[in-house]
């Protein structure tokens, strides 16, 4: 079976980390776009069709939580997985209340990450599907009125 790659946007100010995790995720058949801060993350979202954003919480400038809030306002269908090397699980949980799909502690287990990414993508796909059906119903109804 051909695996349909997940479009992942990986956001972390540690460039080496982004590079290594990207290599690994791509090796596992995913498509990864790197970004190194919150602003770059939003820029990418504007142009690329992203399924899941993997977002480091602790970043200079706009941090992960602020970025998450912007994403959820501007691109509510994009799922966000938070990464934290920080001792602040509380922040991560706060992030989930703000609409993040899940969070992982750094260094995260790769299998865990893959599972969460797959689940996030599934959720997004289901949501996309529901929206498509709603659109279709709307079109049908309109068609019936003609």
């Amino acid at each position: 079976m051909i695996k349909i790659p997940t479009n992942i946007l990986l956001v972390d100010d540690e460039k080496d980390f982004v590079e290594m995790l990207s290599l690994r995720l791509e090796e596992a058949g995913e498509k990864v776009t790197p970004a190194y801060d919150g602003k770059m993350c939003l820029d990418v979202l504007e142009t690329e069709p992203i399924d899941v954003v993997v977002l480091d919480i602790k970043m200079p400038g706009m941090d992960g939580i602020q970025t998450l809030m912007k994403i959820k306002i501007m691109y509510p269908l994009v799922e966000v997985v938070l990464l934290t090397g920080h001792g602040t699980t509380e922040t991560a949980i706060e992030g989930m209340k703000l609409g993040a799909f899940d969070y992982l502690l750094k260094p995260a287990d790769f299998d865990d990450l893959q599972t969460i990414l797959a689940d996030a993508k599934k959720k997004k796909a289901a949501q996309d599907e529901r929206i498509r059906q709603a659109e279709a119903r709307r079109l049908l109804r309109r068609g019936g009125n003609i």
Partner: protein
Amino acid sequence: MEPELIRNIRLLLVDDEADFRGTLAKRLLKRGIAAHQAGQGEACLALLANHPMDVVVMDVKMPGMNGIDALHHIRERHTETEVILLTGHADTRDGVEGIKAGAFDYLTKPVEFDHLLSKIIQAYDKILGKKQKIEAVAYKARIEQQMIATERLAALGTLAAGVAHEINNPLAIIKEAAGYLSSLLQKRELTDMPRKAVFEKVLQKIETSVKRARIITHQLLGNVRKSESILAEVDVIQLVEETIQLVRREAEDKDIAVALQAADGLKPIWADPNQIRQILINLLSNAIQATPEEGRIAIQVESTDGGISIAVIDNGAGIPKENLEKIFEPFFSTKSPGEGTGLGLFVTREIVDKFGGTVEVVSRMGHGTQFTVQIPNRR
């Protein structure tokens, strides 16, 4: 002063006139003070050498060593003893000289008994006051020490969390780099790569070591994610055997025999296997480091009322008494820099505390050390 307190006064009468001493002693006894007696300055000092006194009442004029000379000796050797001098009616100069030399006071003969008694009580009061002051100072010093230790621990805790966080980032990079290489080795084009098995083995080591480091940093952050702290049925014996395998190389290098003594019919317990393993690794590698060449280490596992008890016993150098209180503090280590983090036992106790268990240490210098961990069953 209370009669009971007066009875506590250790009093020595020094006078060459035996009748005077005797009469005085009798009257003192009626008031509750059993006085010792000496007839000369020399005898007084000899007695003091073995029987510490609170108050010495001493005649100045005595054959042999006089009262002033004896007073000088007392001031030198028995700083806590107070001296009341008795002088002749015409010899007040002796009294003044005595005060200069450190006497508590002087009285002129003939002495009025109640006056003498009140002086003795005053002298004793002074001693009690001094003692209380010393105790108060010592108490304050002790409290201050404790506060410093507490603050130091708090500061270290903050530092430890900061360090752990900073380490997590490079650790994540190492982990993904090694993971990527591992996944490359699985590729078909690398099936016949030369020495592929060695690469796989080494990468595996990197990954397991990162996992170990990660457990420690997460412990330090006090922040193991709930779902990561798994509860499972743990076969402790199996975990001990695995851990012995992990440290086998270190033990073999020093010809140390590691023996597992397991009680019969051990039941598995419900706990987090990773954390039990962490405890075992910490205790066992400490034991190996503390044990000399050809030493012995025993691991005793037995069921207890509510769970399991694991003892790691070595016949190594032992832990000095002054270190026993500190070994569970973060960053306390007697190993050379680079050999120990000073976190092993700290983390061990953190884990055990979280399980609601206990960790105890018994150590004898030159004989060895025993660490005993009790872990309750979590089911």
